[in-house]
């Protein structure tokens, strides 16, 4: 029931979004350029009120990257998942750290692990990897390190 209601509300605001089928929560697929305006609406619209960004991560599909955002509302207790497809060669997306402050550190983690460039991020630096790290991004599928083997 809740999923259907949410679907109607979001379609009213953004007629172009595509919903995925057969998922645990309502899942939206959108383009990178649509993300920032959508995020602002999701956060500020009274009927939606997604104020809690619980999980921000990225998946490497070799041909492209997908950013995955799990959003919750502490007021209505509903959840949605937003997925944004990025170009694998030049992954770029707007930061949402101005909307949800926790995104700042989560985006830094994705930046070093996947090489995603977050536009307008206030402080996009390495956090986990050692200073002066050169080489591939560790959580990409093509990353191999023969000295410090991660794959068992």
């Amino acid at each position, binding site marked *: 029931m809740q999923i259907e209601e949410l679907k109607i509300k979001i379609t009213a605001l953004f007629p172009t979004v595509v919903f995925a089928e057969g998922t645990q929560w309502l899942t939206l697929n959108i383009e990178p350029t649509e993300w920032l305006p959508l995020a602002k609406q999701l956060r500020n619209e009274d009927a939606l009120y997604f104020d809690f960004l619980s*999980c921000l991560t990225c*998946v490497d599909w070799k041909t492209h990257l997908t950013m995955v955002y*799990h959003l919750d509302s502490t007021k209505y207790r509903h959840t949605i998942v937003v997925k944004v497809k990025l170009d694998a060669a030049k992954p770029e997306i707007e930061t949402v750290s101005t909307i949800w402050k926790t995104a700042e550190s989560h985006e830094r983690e994705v930046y070093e692990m996947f090489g995603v460039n977050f536009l307008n991020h206030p402080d996009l630096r390495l956090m986990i990897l050692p200073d002066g790290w050169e080489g591939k991004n560790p959580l990409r599928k093509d990353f191999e390190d023969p000295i410090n083997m991660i794959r068992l």
Partner: protein
Amino acid sequence: MVEELGITTEGDLQINVGPQHPATHGVLHLILTLNGETIKKVEPHLGYIHRSIEKMCESLTYRQFSYVTSRMDYLSSHINNNACALVVEKAMQIEVPERAKVIRVLVDELTRIASHELWWGAMAMDLGAFTPFFHAFRERESINDIMEETCGARLTMNYIVPGGLMQDIHPDFQKRVKHFIQLYKSKIDEYNEMVTGNIIFQNRMKGVGILSAEDAISYGVTGPAARGSGVSCDVRKMYPYEIYDKLDFNEVLETGCDSFARYMVRIREMNESVKIIEQLIDNIPEGDYQAKTKAVLKLPKGEFYQRVETARGELGVYIVSEGGTTPYRIKFRSPGFSNLSALDHMARGSKLGDLVAMMGTLDLVIPDIDR
């Protein structure tokens, strides 16, 4: 010359706390910008204990991957294992026997008490009182003994597996848990007498590290740290798993928004955990402790997410499956990582000495942050 010493032109001083510092409880490295004794900025530098658990899991099977999660938040290893078991069971639609569910909740809550007890001892030690640490460890030790008997391990349990439990409980389990509950009840007043009511302790905690409810939500803070700001976020209540929806317990909320409120949440939460254990310990149903599952687990293609309430907050396990025996991608949304992101905001403008109280009440476990 001045810049080499880390002093900027405005007279700010940069100092390093950690990575080897007793108050950080592990290898956390903070770079502080100070003006006199006032904190202007806190920059966490992570990675000293990063083992790349997410990458490792991509080559581990669904039976193996929960073992490494015991090494994430090592103080709530049962709860981490429980999250992994739940996500696999949800994806494969495995029905877990009632006996296993009850025992899972029992060991989860015992872990929560053990974790909060260690936190309590370490917290008092951070603020200069050494004795409480030994008191806390006395009780925690008896939980560890119970775990050792049943699981064979004292810290990295790996007792909860997809489908149920690794083995049945030890015949003495119920007797010893009841004994522990008795012991705990006789000692909790001692805790409050020694630390909670202590005026020096209260002065160091009250009004320190203010985190408003809006900021707690925006920074993604969960667990006792958020409940100290009055944010209702207990996963056991909001999104019940196992048998939590059938149990009688309260979500502990404090509205002080300061370190003392967060302290009180944890103290009261231990009593709630004891309440849960008392409801269940005499009512463990008979039957199997494990569902019949195939030797090799294969998850259907798709995405699966499960959240649980660890001693530190909301742990999320996100699995992307391509239909094979290993996950394509796995992400652990660890509570510590999000809670740490609020530290800079909390610490700005306060004195250097108060930083320890803030870090203590966020209850940071570094392997949980780094993963």
